């Protein structure tokens, strides 16, 4: 159905996103007999975080090490999350991840094998060798899921950016979206809606992620009245390239490079001194802090990082390249595409934003507090807590993607379509069109985006304190009220990336303030929230910081207890 303003498209289940969680949810919903449509900001399988994900997938199935099991994986995940993750979600994650890995095998995905069974590696934070190694990394995983969705004839609306939820009271009934290929407006309507649009690492300047991860879905949910939790929790991946400049930010997988069981390259400061003892590298938040301390003490490398010194590995050149091939630790064909020989040259790396720990709050049915809105994957905020171990992100997409798909179908069966707020849809479209028509002004969206990213790097970066965060809020408010009104967009007939950046920026400036407000509230250091003014974890802060949009647009802050599963958790040191 098309009126002059938009085309309206309806389905039982509407899925927003295109990565691991979104497509798994769509598959689950379709397999349950619903009709499903997927709306993705970019090309499915070539956008978001899943295609760039490292090959690790947590599956405690004890193929490699018979001592392992899901209960131990549960304990490890709770402990490594610094006791902030909701344990009902962690239980689901650790119990169902192996089965979901088998599903993907059925879709044609391949894992590294060893002696006829799944090859598994031990990464920091895991008690035993537990992570599957996906052949072809996250790219292959997203591709396998996309192939399966095509087998099931699920329509994919690609290059289609959703901008606002439509509501019927506190029920989500659909979204307004703009198709970038032709600048056409859409209203997508679902009896149930699944949000799987990923996180917001692009709010910061130095990041290893896809440029489209500006957190649009989180902001949309927030504006619709969803509860967000622990928004200050952004996982820094310790080793992102500081050189060469054309690929600044690109992730290199230290788990394979530094670990003495694999390549065993030492981690050195700018003076050539080893900064971590030989052995299994520390977990991500600990490693990040060690590196940042070196850099801030003036012992960094010329481009502001530390060295991964592969030339100093005890392995031979042949062994190194064989391991690199098996573990997929380096990009661009082990840097050879960029004419860098890693066996001759040190890599300079520094921590970058990588994975969003906080986000939309869900229960173990993947339900949010908004009726009819489900959320799965990185967009959700209460599974991993304050730190995440390698392999749990991809596992999360599959476990909660399926749960969201199954439960969304049940909801769709029990409810018809909600009332469509056509006035709100028209208002949103008028606003979007007005943005494209703003052909004169002072600031390009890209300039404003860079300013927001710089504010977050400076004021909500590796180390945080109250004065810095307050200054960050002030800077963001200035951007919002003094720069944004003077933003202009160079109009083109279709695929106007500058228009997309304008829409992103308008959302980013609000989301960034929610992140800082949440960070100011948590007066402790826990995992990736590192406060120099509150350097210890505090028992009274072992709880969620919840943020919700108030009636005047203000950030309403409250706390919520962590949901416990009633299981006595054994820490790794207790186990040994």
């Amino acid at each position, binding site marked *: 159905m098309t009126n002059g303003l938009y085309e309206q498209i309806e389905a039982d289940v509407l899925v927003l996103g295109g990565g691991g969680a979104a497509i798994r949810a769509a598959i689950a919903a379709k397999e349950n007999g619903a009709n499903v449509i997927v709306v993705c900001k970019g090309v499915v399988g070539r*956008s978001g975080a899943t295609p760039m994900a490292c090959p690790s997938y947590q599956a405690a199935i004890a193929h490699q090490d018979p001592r392992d099991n899901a209960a131990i994986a549960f304990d490890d995940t709770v402990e490594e999350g610094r006791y902030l993750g909701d344990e009902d979600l962690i239980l689901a994650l650790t119990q169902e991840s192996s089965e979901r890995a088998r599903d993907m095998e059925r879709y044609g995905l391949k894992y590294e094998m060893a002696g006829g069974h799944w090859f598994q590696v031990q990464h920091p934070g895991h008690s035993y060798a537990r992570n599957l190694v996906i052949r072809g990394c996250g790219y292959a995983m997203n591709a396998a899921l996309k192939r399966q969705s095509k087998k099931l004839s699920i329509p994919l609306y690609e290059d289609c950016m959703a901008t606002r939820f439509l509501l019927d009271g506190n029920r989500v009934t659909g979204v307004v979206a703009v198709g970038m290929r032709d600048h056409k407006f859409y209203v997508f309507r679902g009896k149930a809606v699944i949000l799987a649009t990923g996180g917001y690492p692009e709010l910061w300047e130095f990041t290893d992620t896809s440029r489209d991860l500006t957190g649009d879905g989180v902001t949309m949910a927030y504006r619709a009245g969803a509860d967000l939790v622990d928004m200050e929790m952004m996982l820094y991946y310790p080793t992102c390239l500081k050189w*060469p*400049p054309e690929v600044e930010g690109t992730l290199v997988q230290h788990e394979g490079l530094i670990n003495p069981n694999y390549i065993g390259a030492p981690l050195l400061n700018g003076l050539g001194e080893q900064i971590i003892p030989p052995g299994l590298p520390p977990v991500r938040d600990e490693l990040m802090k060690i590196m940042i301390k070196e850099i801030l003490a003036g012992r960094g490398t010329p481009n502001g990082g530390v060295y991964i010194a592969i030339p100093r590995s005890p392995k031979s050149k042949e062994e190194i390249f064989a391991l690199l091939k098996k573990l997929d630790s380096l990009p661009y064909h082990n840097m050879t595409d960029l004419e860098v020989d890693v066996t001759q040259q040190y890599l300079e790396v520094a921590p970058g934003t990588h994975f969003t720990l906080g986000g939309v709050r869900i229960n173990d049915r993947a339900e949010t507090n908004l009726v009819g809105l489900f959320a799965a994957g990185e967009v959700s905020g209460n599974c991993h807590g304050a730190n995440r171990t390698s392999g749990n992100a991809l596992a999360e997409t599959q476990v909660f993607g399926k749960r969201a798909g199954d439960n969304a179908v049940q909801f769709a069966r029990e409810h018809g379509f909600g009332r469509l707020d056509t006035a709100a849809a028209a208002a949103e479209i008028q606003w979007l069109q007005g943005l494209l028509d703003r052909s004169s002004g002072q600031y390009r969206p890209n300039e404003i985006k860079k300013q927001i990213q710089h504010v977050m790097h400076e004021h909500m970066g590796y180390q945080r304190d109250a004065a810095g965060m307050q200054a960050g809020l002030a800077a963001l408010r200035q951007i919002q009220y003094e720069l944004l009104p003077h933003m202009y967009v160079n109009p083109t007939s279709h695929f106007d990336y500058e228009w997309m950046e304008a829409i992103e920026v308008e959302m980013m400036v609000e989301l960034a303030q929610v992140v800082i407000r949440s960070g100011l509230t948590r007066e402790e250091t826990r995992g990736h929230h590192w406060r120099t003014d509150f350097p210890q974890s505090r028992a009274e802060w072992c709880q969620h910081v919840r943020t919700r949009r108030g009636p005047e647009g203000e950030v309403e802050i409250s706390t919520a207890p962590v949901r416990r599963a009633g299981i006595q958790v054994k820490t790794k040191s207790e186990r040994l």
Partner: protein
Amino acid sequence: MSDAPAPVRVEVVRSNDQGEPYTQTYEVPYETRMNVLSMLHYIYENQDPSLAFRVCQCSRGICDSCQMKLDDKKIKACSVLVKPGQQLKLSPSNSRVVRDLVTVQD
């Protein structure tokens, strides 16, 4: 007398509002190491906001979102280094052109 690296000359096969191809040439200063994709980002940010191309996604050289043709040969723009003084011709990766270097991909 400066011995700065020579600028790069890029000829891009673009498309107008009717979808008809035309070429536009850019001269890009060689200020820092570049790959084809980071060079396009430079042009968009500093010279021509209307230039359409798919921005960097996977940052690893695998997703092929940045697919296009360099001198009529298909490449991943992020995986090809640009050298000082180089002359390049960039064109869309296939015939399903959305605009400029953006195509509909499988």
